[in-house]
């Protein structure tokens, strides 16, 4: 009880503390994850921590939060050295972290989750009337609002992310660490949340340290940036003094312009994928996809835009064979398609689903076995009913080289690989086939670093230029505008807008995304 009653007065007085990390080193076995990294987070600043996957961003933040104990280096808060041994200590110093994944209890309401976040076991009973009053006050004064009585399961991704941030504010964190907070949000949601936080920062109520690899977020919101590469501090400065090219150079160690992928104009176009009046349900039996029809031609990328949770996931699952449709039909090359293995093989259909470890890999099986998932029953990898293990291994070795998958060996279980390399494993499997007819990609770059995104984009456009029909579903509108030939907007399971990319109207797209 004591903490809760004392809190409101403290909030009014407390300013965000100054956080300084000095010469932080962290080793995992022989791997140096962080090498003498320093970071200075001034009170009331919006600070970006930029770096590729594996650059040490998360390790640094986890050292600050007390998940890891660093081998060297110290943390100073307001000039006094202090040890942070656990996230609890970090909270005590006013440092809170918002994780990439959601940490709320889905079956409980927003109010219950907020109370739970603060629960420390000292109370036996919860005085709901009092808590409720406090929560209402808190919501009034917070930068954004989330309805208190709604169960988490009914919130959209953007609202869940807001709640995660609110939780930290409710805990009176004065330094907010955000770990890639916008990877689960649409651009509009991301902009909204970040600009609201920016206002708080400008008002001097908060310091924000945001981990990201999106330059747009850095240039638009951050005042200062710290860049890491391979565990080392490679750059630091005010955002206004730096160009995107400068930051990219620091991040990647070489000067590289953002590559614009060249498209080849296609001759003799034929329809590959035809969907007629397709409907499908969500897991809970509600309608997710409602009577949609579309055609994807050879050598064309059709992009599907939409706010997460508007049926695009279910649509992709039906096309990929992971979910039954409730009505309508799918034709590929003019033939009825039911997503059986035989048809996939015959029509050369491949998929890059989102969250590859969950959707496209068998985590415990080896890299080689995962790479063989499409081909293991075809010669030369199989002879009759027998697997030819040697052929599977040889093929995997070739793919590992060709797609530069970083793995200790091809026998390593795929879940031991980093996210980017899991994605590369799937890419190698799905894109290495000589003849691809149709590629279904859903958020293929979700949560990946800059270099990996560029690689995947290049691969997709390259496939298109070879004449592959590509259906690209993405929650990243920039990605769609960059890659698509034609864009469709899905909202509440229906297509509300369709246009060739050349004549696409941005405001009409966002209008349609909002359901109008």
């Amino acid at each position, binding site marked *: 009880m004591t903490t809760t009653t004392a809190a409101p007065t403290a909030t009014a007085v407390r300013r965000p503390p100054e956080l300084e990390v000095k010469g932080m080193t962290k080793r995992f076995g022989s*791997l140096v994850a962080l090498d003498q990294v320093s970071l200075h987070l001034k009170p009331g600043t919006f600070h970006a921590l930029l770096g590729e996957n594996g650059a040490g961003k998360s390790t640094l933040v986890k050292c600050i939060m007390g998940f890891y104990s660093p081998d060297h280096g110290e943390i100073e808060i307001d000039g006094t050295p202090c040890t942070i041994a656990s996230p609890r200590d970090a909270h005590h110093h006013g440092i809170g972290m918002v994780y990439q994944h959601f940490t709320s209890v889905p079956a409980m309401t927003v109010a219950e989750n907020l109370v739970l976040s603060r629960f420390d076991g000292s109370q036996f009973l919860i005085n709901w009337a009092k808590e409720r009053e406090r929560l209402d006050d808190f919501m009034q004064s917070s930068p954004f609002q989330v309805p208190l009585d709604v169960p988490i399961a009914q919130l959209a991704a953007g609202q869940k992310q807001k709640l995660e941030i609110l939780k930290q504010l409710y805990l009176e964190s004065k330094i907010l660490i955000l770990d890639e907070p916008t990877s689960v949000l649409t651009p509009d949601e991301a902009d909204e949340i970040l600009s609201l936080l920016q206002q708080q920062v400008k008002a001097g109520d908060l310091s924000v340290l945001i981990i990201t690899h999106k330059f747009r977020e850095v240039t638009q919101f951050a005042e200062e940036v710290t860049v890491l590469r391979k565990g080392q501090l490679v750059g630091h400065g005010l955002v206004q003094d730096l160009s995107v090219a400068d930051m990219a150079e620091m991040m990647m160690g070489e000067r590289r312009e953002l590559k614009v992928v060249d498209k080849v104009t296609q001759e003799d176009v034929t329809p590959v994928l035809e969907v007629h009046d397709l409907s499908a349900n969500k897991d809970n039996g509600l309608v997710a996809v409602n009577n949609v029809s579309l055609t994807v031609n050879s050598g064309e990328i059709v992009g599907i835009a939409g706010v997460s949770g508007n049926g695009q996931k279910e649509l992709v699952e039906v096309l990929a064979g992971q979910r039954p449709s409730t009505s309508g039909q799918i034709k590929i090359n003019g033939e009825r398609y039911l997503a059986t293995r035989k048809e996939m093989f015959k029509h050369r259909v491949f998929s890059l689903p989102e969250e590859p470890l969950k959707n496209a*890999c068998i985590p415990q099986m080896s890299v080689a076995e995962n790479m063989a998932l499409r081909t293991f029953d075809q010669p030369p990898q199989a002879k009759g009913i027998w*697997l030819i293990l040697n052929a599977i291994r040889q093929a995997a070795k070739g793919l590992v080289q060709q797609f530069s998958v970083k793995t200790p060996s091809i026998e390593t279980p795929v879940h031991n690989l980093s996210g980017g390399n899991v994605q590369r494993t799937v890419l190698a499997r799905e894109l290495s086939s000589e003849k691809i007819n149709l590629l279904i990609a859903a958020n293929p770059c979700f949560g990946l670093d800059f270099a990996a995104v560029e690689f995947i984009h290049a691969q997709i456009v390259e496939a298109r230029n070879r004449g592959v029909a590509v259906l690209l579903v993405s929650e990243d509108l920039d990605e769609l505008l960059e890659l698509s030939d034609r864009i469709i907007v899905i909202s509440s399971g229906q297509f509300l807008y369709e246009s060739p990319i050349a004549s696409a109207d941005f405001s009409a797209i966002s209008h349609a995304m909002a359901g109008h």
Partner: protein
Amino acid sequence: MALRKTLESICIPIAAILFGLLLFGLFCSFVGANPFAVYASIWKAAFGSWNTFQNTLIRAAPLMLSSLCTLLPARLGLVIIGNEGALVMGGLAAVSMGLALGTAVPSFWVQSFMALAGMGAGGIWIAIVGALRHYRAVNETISSLLLNYIAIAILNHLVGGPMRDPNSLNKPSTAPLAEINMLGDIPGTRVHWGLVYGLIACVIAYFLIQRTTFGFSTRAAGGNMRAARLAGLPVGKLTLTICFLAGSCAGLAGMVEIAAVQGAANESLNVGYGYGGILVAFAARQNPLAAILVSLLVGGILASGGILQRSHGLPDATVLVFEGIIFLVVLYSDSLYGRLPFFKEKPDRLPPAPQPAIPTSVTAQGS
């Protein structure tokens, strides 16, 4: 590279069994027997001499077969414990077939058809579980467990009623199989041919899972159903097939018990080889070859039941207590994998740290 991993998967089950022995020793001393004398008796009765080891082998045979009933579906991610039911149904079908054919055809054919009938009946029994799972999303563990009771009830009904041999007085049984149709012993031993069936079945299961496209599909679907569907693998067909195969192994165990040991179907058919098979499958970590070894061990424990009763005054069910303790400890030990620092593969997680300018770094490929 995988040396420590292999060592881990050998050491942990052995340690678990030793720890189970220790707990069982405590139990024995609690009920007033000298644990060390009990250990010695078990050893003597199970593995002491060729003569007693044959008793172990006789019991290991049905265990090998029935363990596959849990083991095969486990590779598809299903936890099926309907071994006892499938064994009983297999036994019933086998005895019906044997009695129906009588001595009209050569005994080789009678035995073959009995085996097929047993496998078919057991297979269908577990395929029902698979179908309920796939088409109606019924939990396979619960449905297979409940089907055990149904199978045992059917057995009791049939041997006590329609199929009862009027001459079986104190223990209702079906009519006995003709002597000539019984499975014989392996020459020079008291061990029946069922042991060979068990060994062959385990070896086939191993190759089926590890080396065939069917096994690959099964492991893929068992590891991640969503990825399997993405690759177009026929999950329903896989479920039904693997369940049928699993059940047919247990059904064959039932046939072996009928045709080699009991000679007729009666309540002795469900003496626990089904539940023992579950223990074997888990202790073997769903590896068919390891199941052979574990079956020998569990068979040995079962074989020592008599001597515990005779020499130590312990009740017959003591071996079941022992079996239960071992089962619990083995299940617990499953949670230790990856937790013990000694068995951690050290550099496995990440590729070697980038070291500046070592020209031969390319040769480090593969291992």
